[in-house]
C-alpha cells in the first residue's frame, strides 16, 4: 500500500537520489579548491610533495566526479519524471538558474578534461595551475545556481499566481530570493569544510596505520588548517541561516528547536525527547540562547510552532537533525583548532594517536552533517514543495510505477557506491605516494636521502 502511494514513493526516490548525489556533489565543489591550493603552494615553494598531493587528489576526484555527474543527470531528469506538475509551474520561474547551472557545469567539464591531461604539457607549471581556476569557478557557480533553485522553493518570489497560472514573472527576483544569500553561503562553506575534512581523514589514517612519511605530514597540516578556516566560515554561515529562518520561515526553526509557545527570551534546547503531550524531557536547556541565535538579542521574541496551522507544520523529528548537524560543526571547529594548537606549541606532538583518531573521524562526520543539514532543510519545509503555494502531494506524478523505479535506483546506487569505493581503494593502495614520488621526481627523492 505504502509502496503504491506514488506521492510517498516519489518523495522517497527523490530523497534517495539526493542523499546519494550530495556526497559526490559536496566533494565535487570542495576538492577542486583543495587541489588548487596544494598545487599553488607546491609551485610557489617548489615543494614536490605538495605538487604530488595535488596530482593524487585530482586522480581520486575524477572517479567521484564521474559518479557526481551521472547522479546529477539522474536528479535533473527525475525532477520532471517525478514532479511534473511542480516543474510545469516552477519551470516558468526558475528555468534561468537551472539553465545557468548547466553552463557552469559545462565550463567545469571542459576545463577538468584539460586539467587532467595537461600536467606536463606546459613549460611553466603555473600555467597548468591556472587551469584549476575555471574548475573552481565552475563547480562553485554550479552550487550557487542550484542552491538558488532550492532557496526559491523555500521562499518563492518573483511571480504572482492568477488562478492556476503564473504571471508577472521576474526571473532575477526569483533567483535572488530572501533565502539565497544564507543558503548559498552555508552550502559552499560546508562543502569546502567537508572536503578538507575528508582529505584530512585520509592523511590521518595513513599516518596511523602505515606510519606515513613527510608527504602525509604535509598533507595533514594543509588539510587541517583548511578545515579550521572553513569551519569558522561554516559556523558564521550557520548563524546567519538561523537568523534568516527566524525571520522568513519561523515554523522551520520552531520545529527544529521544539519551540512551541511564542515567547521572549526563548531557551535553546539541545537533544532530549518528547513525551506524549509534546513536552520536552531529558534535554539540556541553554537559557535565552534561542532568542540570541534567532535575533542576536537574548530577550527577543521568537515565534513558536503553535502559530502555524497544524496541517502546515513540519515533522518534529527534524530537531535531532538540526542538533546533530550543529554538534558536528562545533566538533570540527574544536578538533582542528586543537591540532593547530598542538602544532604551534613545540613540545606537544600534533600527531599523537588520540588527536589523529579524532581527525580521522572528522571526514565521515562532516559528510553526515551535510546529510543531516539537508534533511533538516528539506523536511523542515514540509508539507510544501513551494512554501505557501504548492504542496508536495500536488506536485507529484500520478504514475503507478514509482515503487518499481525506487528498487531499480537502489540497485544502481549500490553498484555505483561499491564500485567507487573499490576503484578508489585500488587506485591508491596499489600505488603508494612514496613510490610515485620516487618515480616521478627521482632527483628530489635522491637529494633528500643525501640530506638525511
Amino acid at each position, binding site marked *: 500500500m505504502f509502496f503504491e502511494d506514488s506521492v510517498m514513493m516519489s518523495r522517497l526516490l527523490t530523497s534517495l537520489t539526493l542523499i546519494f548525489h550530495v556526497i559526490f556533489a559536496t566533494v565535487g565543489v570542495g576538492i577542486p579548491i583543495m587541489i588548487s591550493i596544494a598545487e599553488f603552494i607546491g609551485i610557489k615553494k617548489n615543494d614536490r610533495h605538495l605538487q604530488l598531493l595535488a596530482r593524487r587528489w585530482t586522480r581520486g576526484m575524477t572517479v567521484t566526479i564521474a559518479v557526481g555527474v551521472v547522479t546529477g543527470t539522474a536528479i535533473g531528469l527525475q525532477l520532471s*519524471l517525478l514532479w511534473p506538475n511542480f516543474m510545469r509551474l516552477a519551470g516558468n520561474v526558475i528555468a534561468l538558474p537551472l539553465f545557468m547551472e548547466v553552463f557552469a557545469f559545462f565550463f567545469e567539464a571542459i576545463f577538468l578534461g584539460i586539467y*587532467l591531461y595537461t600536467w606536463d604539457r606546459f613549460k611553466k607549471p603555473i600555467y597548468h595551475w591556472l587551469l584549476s581556476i575555471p574548475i573552481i569557478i565552475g563547480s562553485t557557480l554550479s552550487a550557487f545556481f542550484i542552491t538558488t533553485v532550492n532557496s526559491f522553493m523555500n521562499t518563492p518570489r518573483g511571480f504572482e499566481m492568477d488562478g492556476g497560472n503564473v504571471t508577472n514573472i521576474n526571473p532575477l527576483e526569483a533567483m535572488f530570493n530572501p533565502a539565497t544569500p544564507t543558503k548559498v553561503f552555508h552550502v559552499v562553506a560546508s562543502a569546502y569544510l567537508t572536503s578538507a575534512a575528508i582529505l584530512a581523514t585520509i592523511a590521518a589514517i595513513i599516518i596511523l596505520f602505515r606510519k606515513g612519511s613527510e608527504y602525509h605530514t604535509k598533507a595533514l597540516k594543509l588539510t587541517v588548517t583548511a578545515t579550521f578556516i572553513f569551519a569558522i566560515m561554516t559556523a558564521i554561515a550557520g548563524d546567519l541561516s538561523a537568523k534568516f529562518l527566524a525571520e522568513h520561515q519561523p515554523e522551520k526553526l520552531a520545529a527544529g528547536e521544539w519551540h512551541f509557545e511564542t515567547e521572549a527570551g526563548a531557551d535553546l534546547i539541545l537533544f532530549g525527547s518528547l513525551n506524549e503531550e509534546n513536552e520536552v524531557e531529558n534535554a539540556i536547556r541553554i537559557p535565552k540562547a534561542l532568542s540570541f541565535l534567532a535575533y542576536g538579542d537574548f530577550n527577543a521574541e521568537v515565534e513558536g510552532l503553535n502559530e502555524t496551522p497544524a496541517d502546515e507544520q513540519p515533522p518534529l523529528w527534524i530537531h535531532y537533525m538540526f542538533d546533530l548537524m550543529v554538534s558536528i560543526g562545533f566538533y570540527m571547529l574544536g578538533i582542528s583548532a586543537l591540532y593547530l594548537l598542538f602544532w604551534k606549541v613545540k613540545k606537544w606532538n600534533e600527531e599523537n594517536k588520540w588527536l589523529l583518531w579524532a581527525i580521522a573521524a572528522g571526514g565521515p562526520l562532516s559528510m553526515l552533517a551535510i546529510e543531516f543539514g539537508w534533511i533538516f532543510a528539506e523536511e523542515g519545509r514540509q508539507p510544501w514543495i513551494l512554501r505557501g503555494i504548492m504542496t508536495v502531494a500536488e506536485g507529484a506524478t500520478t504514475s503507478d510505477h514509482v515503487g518499481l523505479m525506487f528498487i531499480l535506483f537502489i540497485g544502481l546506487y549500490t553498484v555505483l557506491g561499491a564500485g567507487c569505493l573499490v576503484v578508489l581503494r585500488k587506485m591508491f593502495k596499489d600505488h603508494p605516494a612514496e613510490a610515485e614520488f620516487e618515480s616521478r621526481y627521482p632527483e628530489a627523492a635522491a637529494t633528500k636521502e643525501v640530506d638525511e
Partner: protein
Amino acid sequence: MGYEYIGITVLWLFLYGYLIVASIDFGAGFFAYYAKITKKDHIINQLISRYLSPVWEVTNVFFVFFFVGIVGFFPDSAYYYGQALLIPGSIAIVLIAIRGSFYAFENYGFKNNHLYMFLYGATGLLIPASLSTTLTISEGGFIEETANGVTLLYGELFTSPYSWSVVFLAIVSVLYISSMFLTYYANRANDHSALALVRKYALFWSSPTIIASMTTFIALSQHNPEHYQKAIDLWWMFGLSVAFFMIALFLVYIGKYYGWAFIAVMFQFFFAFFGYGASHLPYILQPYITISSGVTNETMAITLITVFIAGLLLLVPSLILLMRLFLFDAEYVKGKK
C-alpha cells in the same frame, strides 16, 4: 522570428550536437568491446581512449543542456513527457549512469577489465535506443491523457513498426557516425593499422544507415501521414542529406580527405535532423504541446536567450581550446604528449 522559434532552434542545435558527440562516444564504446572480443583491441583501443578521456564528460553535458533547456523554454513538456516517460526515462538514467561512471572506473582504476568494457559497449547501443523513444512518442498516438493524468501506451509502442524503425535507425547511425569519426582520427594519428580497421567498419555501417533512414520514412508515412506530408514539402533538405552521404562514402571509399568525409557526415545528419525537426513543427508533442501553446512566458524566454548568448561566448572559446589541445593537436593524437 518569435522567441519560441529561437528557443526551439537553439535546443535542436544542442540535440544535434549531442547526436554527433554522443554517437562518436557510444559507437566507440561498442567498437572497443568488439575489438576486444575479436582480439583486435591492441590496434584501436589506445586511439579510442586518447580521444574519449578528456571529452566524455562534455558529451554528457550536451544532453543535460537539452533537457534542462526544453523544460525551461517549454514547461508543459515537463508535464507530459515527465508523466509518460517515468519508466523509459529511468531506464535511460540507469544506462547513462552505468556508462559514465564505469568509463571512469575502467579508465582510472581497472584497465582492460572485461566486465566494465562489456557494460560500456552494451550501454552504448541501449542508450540511443531508449532515448529515441522520446522522439517516437512525440509523433502522437503513444500517450493518452485522462482525468488521472498522462499514461504511456506500451502496447502501442512495442507493436509499432515506426518505433522499431526509429530504434534501428538510432543504433546503426551511432555505429556509422562513430566509425566515420574514428577513421578520420586514426588517419590524423598516422595509425595505419587502426585506420584499415575502422575504415572497414565505416564502409560496413553506411548501408544499414541509409536503409534504416528510408524505412523510417516509410513507417512515418503510415504512422503520421500529416508529418510525412510536411517532410515531403521539405524534400530538398533530405535530398541534401543523401547527397552528403554519397560524398562521405565516396571519400572514405577512395581513402582520401577523411576530414572532409567526416564534415560531410555532419552535414548529412544536420540536414536530416533539421528537416525532421522543421517538419515536426508546430508540434512538440502531438497533439498536446505546440511550439506556441507550450512556451514559457516572454520575460523568461528573453532572459534565457540572453543567458544563452552569454553562455556561448564562454563556451565556444573553451570548446575550441579543448579541441585544439586534444582533437587537432597532431602530437597529442599520435600519443606523444
